[in-house]
């Protein structure tokens, strides 16, 4: 198996504050990795580093063999241009905690936007595919609705369809259910379960222990900007070796 995400000693500081203090992590192709940990542990920041929404301060981070944000020539690193960064991001789907749907576009408009304007797909084909994707997330009848007319769960499912429209090789989920009413969490997790079953490589920051236990191939517990322990869900959630993991799980389970 080959690595989709590989991190070696990744560090990230905001001014004086170090949020990531050396992360080593690997996610293989077709695998689902869940990042757990208390808030402020740096898991969202790490996720944002993967598609270069945050710049890594030290260490190395690769996605599908490409160094994130830089090009290596000899032993020197060259910063990528914004257009090159944009090209790399095309194959990485991202789903946000606050959905971040485009409020001036309908659900369908949100999904076709990037395929038409970034990939230059023909409009009719992009539209058909978008309708199929909306159908897949169970929202075929909401194609013409604006985000403000949809529930949180529906908005998040449109956001997933929007990311899938770019045919990503990797999907990043940043606490996708944390802003949802409890009864809407299930519908979003169902869509994510389906994606995992189809073999999508996924890195998921979540507080949904049930989802992590059931879907994840690996679970990574982070605290204070470092990986405390990583392994299968059975190991990390069932038989944690570190006190910090045990203390966290005792609070959330």
């Amino acid at each position, binding site marked *: 198996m080959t690595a989709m995400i590989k991190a070696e000693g990744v560090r990230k500081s905001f001014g004086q504050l170090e949020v990531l203090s050396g992360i080593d992590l690997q996610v293989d192709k077709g695998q689902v990795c869940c990042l757990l940990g208390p808030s402020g542990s740096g898991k969202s920041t790490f996720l944002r580093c993967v*598609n270069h*929404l945050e710049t890594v301060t030290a260490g190395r981070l690769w996605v599908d063999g490409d160094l994130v944000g830089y090009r290596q020539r000899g032993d020197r690193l060259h910063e990528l241009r*914004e*257009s090159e960064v*944009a*090209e790399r*991001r*095309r*194959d*990485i*789907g*991202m789903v*946000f905690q*606050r959905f*971040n*749907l*485009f*409020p*001036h*576009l309908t659900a369908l408009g949100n999904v076709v*936007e*990037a395929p038409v*304007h*970034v990939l230059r797909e023909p409009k009719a084909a992009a539209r058909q595919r978008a309708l199929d994707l909306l159908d897949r997330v169970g929202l075929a009848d909401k194609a013409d609705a*604006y*985000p*403000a007319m949809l529930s949180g769960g529906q908005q998040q499912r449109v*956001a997933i369809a*929007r*990311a899938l429209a*770019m045919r990503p090789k990797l999907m990043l989920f940043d606490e996708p259910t944390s802003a949802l009413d409890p009864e809407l969490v299930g519908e979003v997790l169902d869509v994510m379960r389906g994606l995992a079953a189809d073999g999508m490589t996924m890195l998921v920051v979540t507080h949904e222990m049930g989802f992590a236990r059931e879907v994840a191939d690996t679970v990574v517990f982070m605290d204070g900007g470092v990986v405390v322990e990583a392994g299968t869900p059975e190991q990390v959630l069932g038989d944690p070796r570190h006190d910090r993991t045990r203390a966290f799980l005792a609070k959330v389970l």
Partner: protein
Amino acid sequence: MTTDTPPPIKAVPVRHHGRWIAAAVVLLLAYQVGSALLSSPNLEPHTIGEYLFKDFVLEGVRTTLLLTVIAMLLGTAGGVLLAVMRLSANPVLRVSAAAFVWFFRGTPLLVQIVFFGFLGALLPRLTITIPFTGIAVFDQPTNAVMVGIVPAVLALSLNEMAYAAEIVRAGILAVDKGQTEAAHALGMKPGLTMRRIILPQAMRVIAPPMGNEVITMLKSTALVSVIAGRDLMTAVQTVYAQNYKVIPLLAVAAIWYLALVSVLSVVQWFVERRFGRGHRATSGGGMFR
């Protein structure tokens, strides 16, 4: 079990005494102002009617509208450009845009208009040469270029650019940062993100003050009468300077400005509704009842 629906509520409505008092005060004031105006021998309502649709007045209205449209088109386009420059990561663009806004907001519009009207006195010839070669791609006497409405258009649009830039900038900043991140995460480049995602949403914030800018511009065109700008105000001034019917002719101009602004206000209402798509309508009661 009975499922009787309770009878509808019959209550004595709140009496709005304030409305009656306000109506009485307003009617009284309107009567006093109206009778004072109508009793003036210099208003000459029949003269107003006579001049309202005269050719020179209509020609002035046409020029006023033309000035407003051109100045707003150039002003808005330049304003968007300046706003994007001010928010750019490039420090040279940021500083030059700020300097432009500083200058054109910092001097009175009237001064700028007179300045462009007399540009020939400062620069007798307008010349554009290719640097280091001495080859002139454009070389004309200033007074041959600054003819007709050109100086007025220049002054009004450059001034408008500065104000539009601030409005557009505020609009762009009002769009949630998550929108940029979502667009970037989809592989959209900064230019595309601005054009397709940020600006359309910024329009909701930009449209109301820009509507006010159009209305302000329509009335500001009257200032170009100081350099004989051929607009509505220039037209009535030229005629009342000859026949001394100052008050009726000013009333003619006022009626036209008021009519045009009223039409623009209706247009503004539709434009704001159009750009409010995807957001709940913000209607509801006033602050006072």
